[in-house]
């Protein structure tokens, strides 16, 4: 790579090379293969641009030199153009249940005689459960809303999803689920970040929205810009005592040129991208504190608010392809019954409001929602009225085109692993691969290196 031509000096990547696991046998994340995949995808997609082809062919180095030439204004216009280029593109929304949701008490295996023995302290009484006709399962009483979606055929549910030999640590399991790589990896990019690197572009940060305040590691890309927005009406550049964010940004916009070093370029690129998001959200900001009410009220909780905000962003047609949210509090080591019921109520009611909102906006055929957690919990409850870290988590795939039903094998409560956990019947990477290929139209191996050929019947 000619340094002068690209402006991206090789030395810039030396530390990563030093730590060096890019080419490691454990985690063969092949940057070149990803870039080749991006080029192929770009060529297939309509409206291929020279910029895209260049980036696909040359990878990171060209991408980072090409970007600074585009000013904030240019970036904004390119983003708008991109957003309008494919108004029917499919969207994936990930909801992470933070802490390890107790799948066994979410979709209760009432047909399994061991349930009452193992859950003597926090088993849910039969009378309260919401049974599924013709299945040995029943929904938690808080999941009435999800049950209605399930009965309408819009929920594919998967018990016992995890990875082989799960290590039961939040820390490690979160990293594995977020990166899509089981094992330590120097490449921290998230599986949806790499997806956006493949199908996205270098101009529109709103193609991937981390609904929150910090960047969700799932959306960590290698080059594509992504956005972090909780409330689009509140995404500003506020300085105390400065009456208008636009005034504050004026000198900022003017200070984004003349960089030579990769460090300065990266700082300018980040500002350009953040300011571009601000510009793109102007329309939603103009709605003020009283945007149109959704058809079904969302719970007054960060998950409910986040989904409501996200529906507004999707409704504005800003080119979003993936978005992520999370709901905290699922690490229920003690006093689980009350807490878990409250969490699931918020989750279920949020999902119902979300689906209704998408319907009303004419988006529900384009959006698929993936609900997951880093692990399930121990089959037997503990002395504190809770459950400890387990394996085999519950996953739900929700949408008009979800293949409703129980779509993976439940291993039962009789044969547990050595630590008393559910046996893992389904690898989460098979789930991801199915979502990538079956919903996003992305070759799974380009995002999940070394993934095997197993796929699940998730869509229709």
């Amino acid at each position, binding site marked *: 790579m000619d340094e002068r031509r690209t402006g991206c000096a*090789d*030395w*810039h990547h*030396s*530390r990563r090379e*030093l*730590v*060096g*696991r890019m080419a*490691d*046998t454990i985690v063969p994340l092949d940057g070149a293969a990803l870039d080749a995949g991006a080029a192929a995808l770009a060529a297939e997609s309509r409206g291929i641009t020279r910029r895209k082809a260049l980036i696909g062919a040359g990878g990171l180095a060209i991408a980072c030199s090409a970007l600074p030439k585009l000013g904030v204004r240019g970036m904004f216009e390119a983003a708008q153009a991109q957003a309008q280029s494919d108004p029917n593109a499919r969207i994936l929304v990930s909801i992470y249940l933070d802490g390890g949701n107790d799948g066994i008490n979410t979709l209760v295996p009432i047909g399994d005689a061991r349930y009452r023995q193992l859950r003597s302290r926090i088993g849910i009484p039969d009378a309260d459960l919401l049974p599924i006709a013709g299945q040995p399962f029943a929904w938690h009483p808080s999941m009435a809303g999800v049950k209605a979606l399930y009965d309408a055929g819009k929920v594919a549910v998967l018990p016992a999803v995890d990875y082989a030999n799960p290590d039961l*640590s*939040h*820390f*490690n399991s979160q*990293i594995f689920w977020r990166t899509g790589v089981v094992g*330590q*990896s*120097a490449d*921290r990019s998230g599986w949806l970040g790499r997806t956006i690197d493949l199908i996205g572009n270098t101009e529109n*940060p709103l193609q991937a929205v981390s609904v929150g*305040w*910090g*960047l969700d590691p799932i959306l960590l890309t290698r080059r594509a*810009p*992504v*956005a*972090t927005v909780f409330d689009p009406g509140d995404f500003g*550049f*506020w*300085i*105390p*005592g*400065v*009456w208008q964010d636009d*005034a*504050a940004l*004026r*000198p*900022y916009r*003017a*200070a*984004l*040129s*003349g*960089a*030579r*070093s*990769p*460090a*300065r*370029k*990266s*700082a*300018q*690129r*980040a*500002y350009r991208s*953040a300011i571009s*998001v601000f510009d793109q959200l102007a329309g939603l900001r103009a709605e003020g504190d009283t945007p149109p009410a959704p058809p079904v009220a969302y719970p007054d909780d960060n998950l409910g608010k986040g989904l409501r905000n996200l529906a507004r962003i999707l409704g504005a047609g800003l080119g979003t392809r993936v978005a992520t949210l999370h709901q905290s509090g699922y690490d229920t080591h003690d006093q689980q019954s009350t807490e878990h019921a409250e969490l699931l109520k918020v989750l279920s009611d949020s999902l119902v409001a979300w689906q209704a909102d998408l319907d009303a906006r004419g988006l529900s055929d384009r959006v698929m929602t993936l609900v997951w957690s880093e692990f399930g919990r121990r089959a037997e409850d503990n002395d504190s009225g809770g459950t400890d870290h387990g394996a085999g988590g519950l996953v739900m795939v929700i949408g008009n085109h979800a293949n409703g039903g129980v779509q993976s094998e439940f291993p039962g409560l009789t044969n547990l692993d050595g630590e008393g956990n559910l046996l893992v019947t389904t690898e989460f990477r098979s789930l991801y691969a199915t979502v990538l290929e079956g919903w996003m139209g992305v070759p799974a191996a380009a995002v999940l290196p070394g993934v095997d050929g197993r796929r699940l019947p998730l869509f229709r």
Partner: protein
Amino acid sequence: MSTRPAPTVDRVARLRVERLYWRAGFGALPGEVNALARQPIGRVVQSLLTPRGAQLRRGPAPKVDGQPIDPFNEWGHDVLWWLDRAVRGRHPLVERMTLNWHDHFATSNSKVSDAKLMLTQYRTIRAHALGTFRGLAQAMLRDHAMQRFLDLDNSHKRAPNENFARELLELFTLGVNNGYTERDIREAARALTGFTFDWETKRFGFDPERHDAGVKVIFGRRGNFDAADVVDLAINHPRHAPYLCKKLWGYFTPRPCPPATLRRMVSAYRGSKTQIKPVLSIILTHPALYADLGEPDQVKPPIVYAAGMLRKTGRFVTFRDWSWLLDDMGQRPFYPPNVNGWDQDTAWMSTASVRARYSAASRIIKEMNIEDGSLSANQTPAKALEAALAATGDPWISPQTRAALMRYARTSVAGRTEKWEVKHYFPERQRVLRHLLLAGPDAQVS
């Protein structure tokens, strides 16, 4: 606060000192730049390497919401505690190397879940930060936060846990696939068995019954190796010194390490029996560190950015917001994202992180309390910029930024002659100028 360069102080010498203190510390205090710039850079480096006197600057510990920082009981205060050390520290290189070693021996309280163990680890790292790497690595082996983080506690000879053994070779001493085999990891894991932790009593210990005292073969050598032997074997491995020296170099500059310099570092490191100071001395006096002083080439890590902002404006950690601000910037000390530590340099920059950096400056502007009516219409654009530079520690800015600031200083108050306009817009101009100096793209790099 006098920040204009005295005529006798060379501008280049000032830039050199500023860069050194951003890379080897958390930014020079505005009041010390000129005095440092009058010394040869070698002597400044020497004084960084041989810190004397109290660890913290004089004066009372800052209060957050009226209370002392309480890292053990208040949410987010562990992060504030670290930031406060960086802001008030009198031994910048020691504090900065403590941060670098925390990245190298990355241990997260997300898994450890015990702030006391984390702060103990901080103190252990700090005590060895400029000592020998061998001393540091042996201390990390015995560090309880580390033992818990990499599952060394309760690794039993019947089922040795390989986590620590793997990272010891992969990350701490040799580098990935750099001179060892999977068998070395398994054998090392056997030697590392026997440490215990009792969840009930919270006590750490060592149980000889659980330790595999048998013969192991590691790197082709055979012996009844124990845990300390494994660390020594790794440090004495021929691939270790180049790996570590190159990694240390990478913390201070993104430029490539010249092979001759690497050889010099390796020789100094081995010759001194793993002393860290001789290596740092070579790096910190190297021309590559001071190349192109008019074009900063490294992104400031969030903690350096935050602490530097406070130091340059003469402030201290007085609000809790730093905890979430640093989180949103992507660097909460005590919570590295994985065993590999933080991705450095340009990886710090994202749409989200830059907004958090912007918000941090907004918080500082709020603290500065520039009231409406406090500035008159007589303040010329040039004077306004001069005042803003003085209030923000006279940071480096590019010609583009200077031009943008001057244009803004002129246009933002043009035609604002009504009394109410003067009252608001002249202070508003000052707020925006300072903000851009604190958080603009140029402020992100050193």
